């Protein structure tokens, strides 16, 4: 093919803008799609059901420790599921204590604690344990001792929490890139094998954590956006779910780019070495 017959390529910076535009249109036209044609919630509800069962099976008046360590980059993906789980725990009447072992997790935890308080959670049902420094070392210490963020007295229902993670009936782990279910299984699960561990993680961590579910070291794992949507849709957060049309269009664009890449002719520089970059 001669140089003169090549189509003029769009500048590289236009492709991301075009993609954002297409995604925005896809989200806007979601209402025009017939109900049931596109569903963001996973039709296989096994993961969502396991988490729901773990909450339902809690004893009356139980204490649940929420290990809130998501990262800011992936938290939007799991936020509906996390909020649905916290609401389910409240509805179950569980005492919720929130602790973080990462600074990013603490930032998210502070926002979620404030949200729960704005929904009416009182001090005898919600305890903010704050940030525990030292990462894994701090987590190991927390197995036998935990103190609230403010220092002072602990409300009576949470008095046992001073004995550490051992005093809780379940731990709900909200994982991110740094600390997540794997660290909990290694540092807490080995010391407290009777403590049920349930987890919500972003899809990027799901393959790494899934073996712990199969081995029984986790009682429940919601680990993809679609599992999270299935869990949230069954609870109180069906409105905060990602757009099914947006997801479909994004995946179709990805497939189109992959197919284009698969059919592209190999290109080499003058030395026959590395290929030239192609912007899109």
């Amino acid at each position, binding site marked *: 093919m001669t140089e003169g017959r090549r189509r003029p390529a769009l500048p590289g910076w236009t492709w991301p803008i075009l993609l954002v535009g297409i995604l925005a249109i896809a989200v806007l036209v979601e209402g025009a799609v017939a109900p049931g044609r596109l569903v963001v919630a996973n039709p296989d509800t096994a993961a969502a059901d396991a988490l729901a069962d773990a909450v339902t099976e809690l004893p009356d008046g139980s204490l649940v420790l929420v290990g809130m360590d998501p990262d800011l980059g992936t938290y939007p993906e799991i936020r509906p599921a996390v909020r649905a789980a916290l609401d389910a725990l409240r509805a179950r009447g569980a005492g919720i204590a929130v602790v973080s072992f990462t600074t990013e997790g603490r930032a998210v935890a502070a926002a979620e604690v404030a949200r729960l308080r704005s929904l009416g959670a009182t001090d005898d049902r919600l305890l903010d344990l*704050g940030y525990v420094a030292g990462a894994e070392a701090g987590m190991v*210490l927390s197995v036998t001792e935990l103190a609230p963020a403010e220092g002072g007295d602990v409300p009576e229902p949470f008095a046992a929490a001073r004995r550490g993670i051992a005093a809780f009936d379940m731990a709900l782990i909200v994982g991110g890139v740094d600390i997540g279910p794997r660290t909990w299984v290694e540092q807490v699960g080995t010391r407290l094998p009777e403590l049920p561990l349930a987890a919500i993680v972003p899809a990027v961590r799901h393959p790494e954590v899934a073996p712990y579910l199969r081995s029984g070291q986790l009682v429940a794992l919601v680990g993809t956006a679609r599992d999270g949507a299935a869990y949230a849709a069954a609870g109180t957060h069906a409105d905060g779910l990602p757009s099914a049309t947006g997801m479909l269009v994004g995946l179709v664009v990805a497939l189109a780019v992959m197919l284009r890449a698969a059919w592209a002719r190999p290109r080499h520089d003058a030395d026959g070495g590395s290929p*030239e970059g192609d912007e*899109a």
Partner: protein
Amino acid sequence: MPATIVVLVGLLLLVNFVVINPLVAGVAREVLRLVVVVAAAAAVAGALALVLRHGSDLWRGRGDRAGSLVLLIGLVAMLAAGFYPGSAGAADPAVRWLVAALLAPIVAALFALLFVFTLVAMQRGMLLRSRQVTVMLAAAAAVVVLLLPLGGPAGAWLATAASWTTAVPIGGVFRGLLIGVAIATAIHAARIVLAVDGADD
């Protein structure tokens, strides 16, 4: 000396894990507290080093001055919100606003760019026609198809296939990786504890 400290602390924590003894548990707890203090001090030192580095760049007109200025302004804004008299620290509304309105959207947007960058990288990689990139592309395409949010019987079939793929082939690979990492970590730890030559390098 560092190797000796590592060996002693490692053995102490190992004994504490295996043997139930109040004295050993007390000593192990104090050691862990020391580790926590060291980790916290390292975090503070890291923050100070960052400030010094970017402050110095700004002062001497080196590097990306605009980036350094933004970083220092962000740092000061967050510290001011968290430390002003009467502040509730990380739970203070000002800190929560900075996180929710600025930090979280920026970080999430950067993470979302991975979608674009991964596709571009994949396309560039395919120009090499290497077998590894071809396998990666095929696997990625298969996963994308399995994740299509379709309703009806087709969607249910894709969801079942996605669950099987995660649990069996991908799960098998990660299970193997986890076991391999655990064995390698145990061997490395044993080499340190037994003071095998070069293990502390």
